[in-house]
């Protein structure tokens, strides 16, 4: 029996031996973070003092009063760290690729950067039009090539003033250092020079007129901090607290785990109404859902339909269902070509005929797709690839342009075009050499696309086109529909930013694959002179209403010529706990999204109910209980074994 005891002890020891070295490394890292906390608090106090001064300068914003109150409240909270901290925990199902804004491309990372740093402009919370952020005002020269921005009187979170020099350094770094181009290289491609005439005035000269200048996606970085980092491509932006000028300050980041942000008391609009914002990573969406229901997190965005529906019936959870920023569409291989106009791939020749494409458009019942495939959580597409969430840019098909579900009309069009039906009900090419048998390429393991394929196959049969489904893994799919052109019809979709220029550009001639067959980023192999002309025109049209009109005409061209056919706009599905989040303003304000939109409005507007008890206390006491239970269980099992052994030995002795 002593042997059993020894065995148990050995087991425990081995466990410790395995766990300790790793835990020690973690603890060391924690210690480093902990050491920085006093400094953080100290500088926060300094910042609060400075924030008070800054408020005098911006009394006219109307936010100063609340800001000052907030600062006082913060100071009180700082004295009593456990006292009713207001924390909101955001669940995300994407891990942070990099905290360095020059490198990060993932949505979660760029969202966090939106909360850490100021930009020249920010989409207005109601209209999504560019509105002042760090740039207070701006003007353009008569030749449309020179932009002059007035930089606001704001402070970095370490107390230093934000100046035009910071912006100059940021843009010039991206323009000159290759490693810094990864995230936002394209945004400065058209920049000729960036200079500051004084600390408040930023001058950007462009090579060609650039209408989308005000949608510049680049955060302004603190020059005094970043100048000394050395190799920008290797810097992880992990000197906590990270110096920024946005509503929140990052104080800790654990890879594949969480990012912890604190309210920036010196934020120029006034400090946020919560104390801390935690961004918590779940690899598994179902686990994230469970976390929301349990109360481990307070808000989660970008849900799919089943996850969203699983939240129904919980009295504490608000299901937030609003128009989304995405369009789902069909991509039709209407004669794929490389950039030097050489045909590639094996698209069905009938799809070159715009009449066939239009007939296909008539065959589709978009409302049925929304009801049956998307469980009603989408809007039928009566436009093209820009969803109606962007009211300003959205083009709505009306009158003669509007295509509705009408199989008879589709058949009529195909009959008139000379595609006669054979005895099997499948149409033939006018020359009688090939049947209208087409493939529909979808991704493997996507039930939604399977269902979509079933509906399309049925409707296509009604108009004499045989459709077979071809499932591909996502890499193969991207290859065949993106540059080798080995498809007839494929599912596609794209999320759109407040300025749709980027997504419209994916249908330009120049995006087709190179002569050597490398991808160029096309979403349709489209190359249409009319579309190109409109695109070039809008690039330099600085008069906003006129530019909006041009962009609408581009969508109309896509709708009527049908290289792509928009099916529906999936809604943006989110959920949050109303017992934890007292208020949150979506973007746009009336029916907008909470997480993943541009700008910081929802997160900045967050108001939280105070936690009933300190979450850290709660967690560790549960941990203690569980640990104690585990120890007792092991002892009990050991005791049980011992008695068993004694008894069996006794049995055998007889």
């Amino acid at each position, binding site marked *: 029996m002593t042997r059993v005891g020894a065995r148990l002890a050995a087991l425990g020891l081995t466990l410790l031996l*395995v766990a300790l070295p790793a835990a020690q490394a973690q603890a060391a890292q924690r210690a480093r973070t*902990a050491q920085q906390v006093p400094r953080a608090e100290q500088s926060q106090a300094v910042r609060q003092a400075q924030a008070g001064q800054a408020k005098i300068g911006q009394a006219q914003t109307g936010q100063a009063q609340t800001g000052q109150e907030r600062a006082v409240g913060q100071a009180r909270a700082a004295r009593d760290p456990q006292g009713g901290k207001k924390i909101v925990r955001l669940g995300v199902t994407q891990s942070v690729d990099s905290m360095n804004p020059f490198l990060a491309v993932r949505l979660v990372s760029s969202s966090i950067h939106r909360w850490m740093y100021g930009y020249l402009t920010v989409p207005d919370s109601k209209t999504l039009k560019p509105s002042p952020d760090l740039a207070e005002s701006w003007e353009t020269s008569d030749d449309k090539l020179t932009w002059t921005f007035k930089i606001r009187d704001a402070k970095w979170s370490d107390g230093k003033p934000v100046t035009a020099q910071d912006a100059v350094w940021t843009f010039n770094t991206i323009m000159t250092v290759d490693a810094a181009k990864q995230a936002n290289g394209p945004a400065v491609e058209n920049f000729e020079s960036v200079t500051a005439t004084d600390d408040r005035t930023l001058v950007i000269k462009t090579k060609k007129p650039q209408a989308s200048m005000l949608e510049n996606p680049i955060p302004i970085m603190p020059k005094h901090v970043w100048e000394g980092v050395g190799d920008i491509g290797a810097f992880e932006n992990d000197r906590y607290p990270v110096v920024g000028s946005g509503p929140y300050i990052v104080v800790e980041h654990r890879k*594949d785990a969480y990012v912890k942000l604190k309210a920036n008391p010196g934020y120029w609009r006034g400090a946020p109404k919560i104390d801390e914002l935690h961004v918590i990573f779940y690899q598994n969406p179902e686990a994230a859902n469970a976390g929301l229901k349990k109360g481990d997190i307070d808000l989660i965005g970008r849900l799919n339909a089943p996850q969203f529906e699983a939240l129904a019936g919980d009295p504490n959870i608000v299901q937030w269902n609003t128009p989304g920023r995405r369009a789902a569409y069909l991509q039709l291989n209407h004669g794929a070509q490389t950039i030097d106009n050489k045909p590639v791939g094996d698209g069905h020749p009938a799809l070159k005929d715009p009449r066939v494409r239009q007939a296909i458009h008539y065959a589709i019942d978009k409302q049925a797709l929304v009801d049956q495939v998307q469980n009603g959580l989408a809007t039928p597409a009566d436009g093209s690839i820009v969803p109606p969430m962007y009211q300003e840019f959205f083009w709505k098909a009306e009158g003669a342009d509007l295509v509705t579900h009408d199989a008879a009309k589709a058949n009529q069009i195909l009959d008139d075009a000379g595609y006669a039906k054979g005895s099997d009900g499948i149409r033939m090419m006018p020359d009688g050499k090939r049947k209208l048998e087409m493939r529909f390429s979808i991704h493997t393991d996507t039930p939604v696309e399977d269902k979509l394929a079933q509906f399309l196959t049925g409707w296509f049969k009604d108009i004499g086109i045989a459709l077979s489904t071809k499932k591909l893994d996502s890499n193969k799919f991207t290859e065949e529909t993106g540059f080798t052109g080995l498809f007839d019809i494929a599912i596609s979709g794209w999320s759109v930013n407040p300025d749709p220029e980027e997504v419209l550009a994916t249908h330009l001639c120049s*995006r087709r694959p190179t002569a050597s067959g490398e991808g160029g980023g096309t979403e349709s192999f489209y190359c249409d002179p009319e579309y190109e002309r409109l695109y070039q025109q809008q690039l330099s049209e600085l008069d906003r209403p006129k530019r909006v009109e041009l962009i609408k005409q581009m969508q109309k061209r896509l709708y009527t010529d049908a290289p792509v056919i928009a099916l529906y706009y999936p809604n943006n599905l989110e959920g949050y706990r109303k017992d934890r989040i007292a208020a949150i303003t979506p973007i746009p304000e009336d029916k907008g999204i909470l997480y993943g939109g541009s700008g910081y409005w929802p997160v900045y507007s967050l108001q939280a109910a105070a936690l009933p008890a300190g979450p850290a206390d709660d967690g560790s006491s549960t941990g203690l209980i569980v640990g104690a239970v585990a120890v007792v269980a092991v002892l009990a099992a050991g005791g049980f074994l011992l008695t068993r052994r004694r008894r069996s030995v006794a049995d055998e*002795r007889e």
Partner: protein
Amino acid sequence: MTAPSEVDPGTPFDVEPAGPAGPGGERGARRTVLRYALAKAGGAVLSIGMVIVATFFLFRLIPGDPAIAYTRDVPLDPAQLDRLRHQMGLDKPLMQQFLDFVGRTLTLDLGTSYEYKRPVADLIAERVGPTLVLVGTGLVIAVSLGLWQGTRAAWKHGSRFDRFSTGLSLVLWSVPTFWLGLLLLMVFAAGVGPIPGIFPTRGMEDVDAPDGPLYLLHVAHHLVLPCLTLVAVVYAQYLLVMRSSLLDEIGQDYVTTARAKGLRDDQVRRRHAVPNALLPTVTLVFIHIGFVVGGAVSVETVYSWPGLGLLFYEAIQGPDFAVMQGTFMVVCTAVIVMNTLADVAYHVLDPRVRSA
């Protein structure tokens, strides 16, 4: 028992015949062990070399253009795509890419991740700790549980305990890891009906985790469910191997002799049967130690455990070639090294292998 062939069916290096019982038998034996170990090590180095070659070409067979796949949700123009391909080294001829790859690998440079823009070796080093905690603990528990139950089941084979434990372990072994993990998570982390969710829904630690010794408890709390899932799906193999090899031993003459000597049942089992039956499990344990490094992809994914398995899973979705190659090579190397150690250990532990 046919131990040698079970240990190592594939290596071309034959076991050196032990020196004819000449002078200095002890020294001779030691020399054979050394020679044997060296031969095995040579084989391992060769295998690792082949892994390097295979890794490179294997990962080039994945369809798709990494530059396009990487930027799936970012519209880029051809010039930017070209720059990206250049950064990734994809614009060089295949042979050149291969030579670069071999050269870098030999200097332990596993390349730079496209997704994280950081050296793969760093990414792996950061995630080894959590994986060791999870899979290491799981392995220790699974081995102890499996061997204990296997011994008991074999000693009283046909008993209710035997049927129950063998049956249960086989059921758990056949259950998909991902499904079991999710089930445990839904029941014991989220809470169902009267069962409260007492375990965390994710990760190894929460924001504001306590410091000091409490931190260990905090991690242990997070470790319970992932570890339970891992143990449940792997302990069956230890149980079954132990059970069958002990059954082999039970019928042997020496066991009968031991009983005839009047030894207690307990002593017969512990002193005579079990030590001999343990040999095959040694191989199994060593091989699994190799896999520890690979983490448990499904378990880490379900529980968002920040280890190597999660890194590998994310890399596949990228696809992030550099990270995939790096983790793949690290895991392969670990398995090969452990396999070699198992061979040598066997040689030392079992005199029959030496004389064979």
